């Protein structure tokens, strides 16, 4: 019980952490330090509570009556909540420390306090979202989270682009909330209460209603998580928010959407196989298309945002596999799929926050987000670049870092859907080989991710500077470096020792699918200790080879010259491959989804005048589908304004009409 109170207290401290600074009146660094201190204290408290709750047999629960007409204040911490709470307590606190250097209140006197307030509120509300066990409480926390994120992300509201991104976010998040309202209404109708607890009533929901609830949950939570094509708000909002807010939004807030899907599917009865199929297909499409869009971007934070979408796709693939396993009674799929999804939730929150922090450092140094203006930062910011390489290798799911451990579990799970073969590794139950094709999609995302992050690394850090923007760049102060270093250490830690997480993952998977304790373990299906052994082996081998090269008698640098220019006498830095040129072949390969807008220069004759090429990859869904639709709506829907007469009598008349209609509907045999 103590653990639950600690987590609740943590939620309170986090939510109110920005308040002292607001009470101080004038903008000062004291307020920001106090807020950061409170964030750290709150997170420490919360993490302590999580550790305490680990050892307990039954998940600690609490139910308090409240004055609102429906529901009650019901909270519980089970193993699923613990897994999602971890990032909530880690990333925002690190972000607050990072903010000390990144968003100094002395440099941002107008919005520093506002940012602190909503940043804390965002973190606190996310704690409540993951532990709420009542539909009404959940929705309240959800809405606070959504709005706090809006206000935190749009602090630079005098910029038109930021305002536009904020609007898109607001519309999208409320479209999602509408689906959630409908879902909870249906839930209440089917089970008789708003309680989000497994119950006999919940298990007796008829298949049709359960399917509808599932689809509504997928839509509602899919908007938040950024499943394609519901991702429209994500790139703009992530790109235009301050970097540590982007880190929290991408690293933690998107996962709340995933949490919602996990929680609702845990409560619903075992569904038809299409539930898992839909989620798996959506995940595969999101994964591949997300990265295809990422490769087309110039803006480094937009690129990271699209890569977040891709990672959500991978998590969704894991969930889809687990759902399929639950429908078809394959415990091994459940354990591997769920384990992979939840481990990837953790992994993504670590490496994506690291990369967004890094992006913030780059923007500080280069004063631009446009990759094609940057370049050659490695010499001025060597430590930042080192940490960036760690994040990039991790997010490409390359061994020996954490991304690989998570995707490896998913691969093993997907391969096991092949069905029985002559050997023992594929399990004995019937298979569904169609699902295994998802492994191929995952392989494609792996290759695309390498392309995407090599592009980012190369365009920003390597080569020579492309513009004088970043000539005074240097490594950021310790307050920004330390959080990044911690996150990088986390990536390496989970990558080398993933088995530490496996008991928690197994526990969560069993809770989710109500499997017996004796069911398959991750270690028996996928020997994680080998990942440790080979990860360490790789590190040792690389060190050994480096030393071996050092011992070579004549392996010395005998000359340092310019890069080989292939005989061209006057190479300039502008001739380097930019990020755009690096991605161009891939953009063309994927042109059928990306629909890039290109402006080709027309070069005619000898000595033609100067020409320039311009290529943009807009968001296909937002710019070609949603916005045109909204424009059409904006043209025709104003006709409804005739209803808005501005006369009180008319409004009373409307009320009267509606009351009469409701009365008639009740008489006709509608719901009492």
């Amino acid at each position: 019980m103590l653990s639950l109170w600690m987590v609740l207290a943590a939620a309170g401290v986090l939510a109110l952490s920005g308040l002292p600074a607001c009470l101080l009146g004038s903008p000062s660094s004291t307020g920001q330090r106090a807020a950061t201190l409170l964030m750290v204290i709150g997170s420490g408290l919360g993490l302590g509570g999580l550790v305490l709750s680990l050892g307990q047999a039954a998940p600690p629960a609490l139910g308090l009556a409240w004055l609102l007409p429906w529901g009650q204040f019901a909270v519980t911490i089970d193993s699923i909540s613990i897994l999602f709470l971890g990032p909530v307590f880690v990333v925002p606190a690190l972000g607050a420390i990072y903010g000390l250097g990144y968003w100094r209140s002395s440099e941002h006197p107008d919005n520093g306090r506002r940012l602190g307030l909503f940043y804390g509120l965002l973190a606190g509300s996310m704690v409540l979202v993951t532990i709420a066990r009542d539909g009404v409480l959940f929705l309240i926390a959800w809405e606070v989270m959504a709005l706090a994120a809006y206000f935190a992300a749009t602090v630079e509201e005098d910029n038109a682009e930021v305002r536009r991104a904020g609007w898109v976010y607001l519309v999208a998040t409320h479209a999602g909330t509408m689906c959630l309202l409908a879902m909870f209404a249906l839930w209440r109708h089917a089970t008789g209460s708003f309680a989000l607890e497994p119950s006999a009533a919940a298990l007796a929901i008829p298949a049709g209603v359960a399917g509808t609830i599932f689809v509504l949950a997928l839509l509602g939570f899919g908007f938040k998580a950024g499943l394609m094509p519901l991702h429209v708000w994500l790139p703009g909002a992530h790109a235009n928010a301050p970097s540590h807010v982007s880190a929290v939004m991408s690293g933690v807030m998107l996962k709340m959407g995933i949490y919602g899907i996990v929680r609702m599917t845990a409560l619903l009865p075992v569904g038809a196989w299409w539930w898992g199929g839909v989620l798996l297909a959506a995940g595969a499409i999101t994964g591949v298309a997300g990265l295809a869009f990422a490769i087309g971007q110039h803006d480094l934070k937009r690129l990271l945002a699209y890569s977040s979408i891709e990672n959500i796709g991978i998590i969704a693939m894991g969930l889809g596999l687990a759902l399929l396993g639950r429908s078809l009674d394959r415990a091994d799929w459940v354990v591997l799929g769920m384990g992979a999804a939840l481990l990837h939730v953790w992994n993504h929150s670590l490496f994506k926050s690291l990369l967004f922090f890094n992006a913030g450092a780059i923007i500080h140094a280069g004063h631009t987000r446009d990759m094609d203006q940057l370049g050659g930062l490695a010499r001025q910011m060597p430590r930042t670049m080192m940490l960036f390489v760690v994040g990039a290798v991790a997010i490409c799911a390359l061994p020996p870092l954490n991304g690989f451990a998570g995707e490896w579990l998913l691969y093993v799970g997907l391969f096991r859907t092949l069905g029985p073969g002559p050997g023992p590794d594929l399990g004995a139950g019937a298979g569904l080989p169609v699902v295994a094709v998802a492994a191929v999609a995952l392989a494609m995302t792996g290759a695309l991710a390498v392309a995407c992050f090599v592009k980012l690394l190369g365009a920003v850090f390597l080569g020579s500077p492309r513009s004088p923007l970043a000539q005074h760049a240097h490594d950021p102060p310790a307050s920004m470096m330390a959080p990044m270093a911690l996150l990088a250490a986390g990536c390496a830690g989970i990558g080398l020792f993933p088995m530490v997480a496996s008991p928690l993952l197994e526990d969560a998977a069993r809770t989710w699918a109500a499997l017996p304790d004796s069911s398959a373990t991750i270690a028996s299906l996928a020997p994680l200790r080998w990942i440790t052994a080979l990860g360490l082996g790789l590190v040792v081998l690389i060190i050994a080879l480096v030393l071996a090269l050092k011992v070579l008698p004549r392996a010395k640098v005998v000359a340092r010259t310019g890069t080989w220019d292939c005989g061209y006498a006057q190479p300039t830095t502008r001739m380097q491959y930019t990020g755009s040129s690096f991605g161009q072949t891939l953009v063309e390969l994927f042109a059928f989804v990306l629909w890039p807008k290109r402006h080709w220069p027309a070069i005619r004759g000898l000595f033609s005048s100067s020409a320039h090429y311009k290529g943009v990859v807009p968001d296909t869904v937002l710019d070609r589908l949603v916005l045109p639709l909204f424009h059409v709506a904006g043209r025709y829907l104003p006709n409804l304004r005739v209803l808005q007469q501005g006369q009180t009598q008319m409004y009373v008349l409307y009320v009267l009409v509606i009351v009469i209609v409701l009365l008639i509907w009740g008489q006709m045999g509608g719901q009492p």
Partner: protein
Amino acid sequence: MTDRIVHMLVLLVLPPLLIGMINKTKAWFGGRDGPPLLQPYYDLFRLMRKGMVISTSTTWIFRAAPVVTLATVLLAGLLVPISRFHAPIAFTGDLILFAYLLGLARFFTTAAALDTGSPFEGMGAAREVTFACLTEPALFFALLVLAKASGSLTLTQMLHGPVGGFAAATAAPLVLVAIGLFIVILAETCRIPVDDPNTHLELTMIHEVMVLDHSGPLLGVILYASAIKLCILGTVLLHVVAPFTTGQVWLDVPLFVLELLGLTVVIGVVESVMARLQMRHVPYLLIAAMLFCGFGFLLLVR
């Protein structure tokens, strides 16, 4: 123990010979004597005794890349069984580690190419990552077929087949997979018709252009690593197309080495009789490889 020693010997010593064999075959087709069969070894020794010239625009990535590449291919080589022996390292799911180790090598090789800031090397790196996006799915379709046919997720068992060999029904899918894998090998080891390892026109190259600025021991490490990569990918293919054994352990290894040399002769013949494809046509070839492996999968599970 002997099998591990033999494995290490084959893995460490044989690869440059394969390159020499390809060059010899091409020379023979061109009516030349060609360089001696052991020339790649001489080249490696020569490079190891040289100093390095390094571009002023490079960072540690540039020097780390060859080392990381060598380490990853060596480790990947330990996962692939040679001849009838079990691989030194074999565990459930090692096939994915195999593919991703090669991915790690690609990450660092392409990053090192961008590190020099040379437009040509950037071009090579861009092509490398683009084509990898098509070879990777083909490779995974092939792995799916092998996993289903053998019922195993361990490369050793997948490539050796279950006890008593693959089931009869897998013959047709395996033919398709073998064709797909052959194309993947040509692409991954940068041979004609995807890439020309001998050309000196930077605009048309992929792998060679990425390592233009490496010199001395670093270049030696790169050449050695790419030879090892050819060796292990060739081994994978050989297990699919020529799973012959004599039953005698001391005969199996020489037979296997002969098979590998035979494969390199085939690659040399392909290089001699074909022209390099236009760059914009390369994706067609790779998509075809993906389709072949995909059809293999479809045939097997339909």
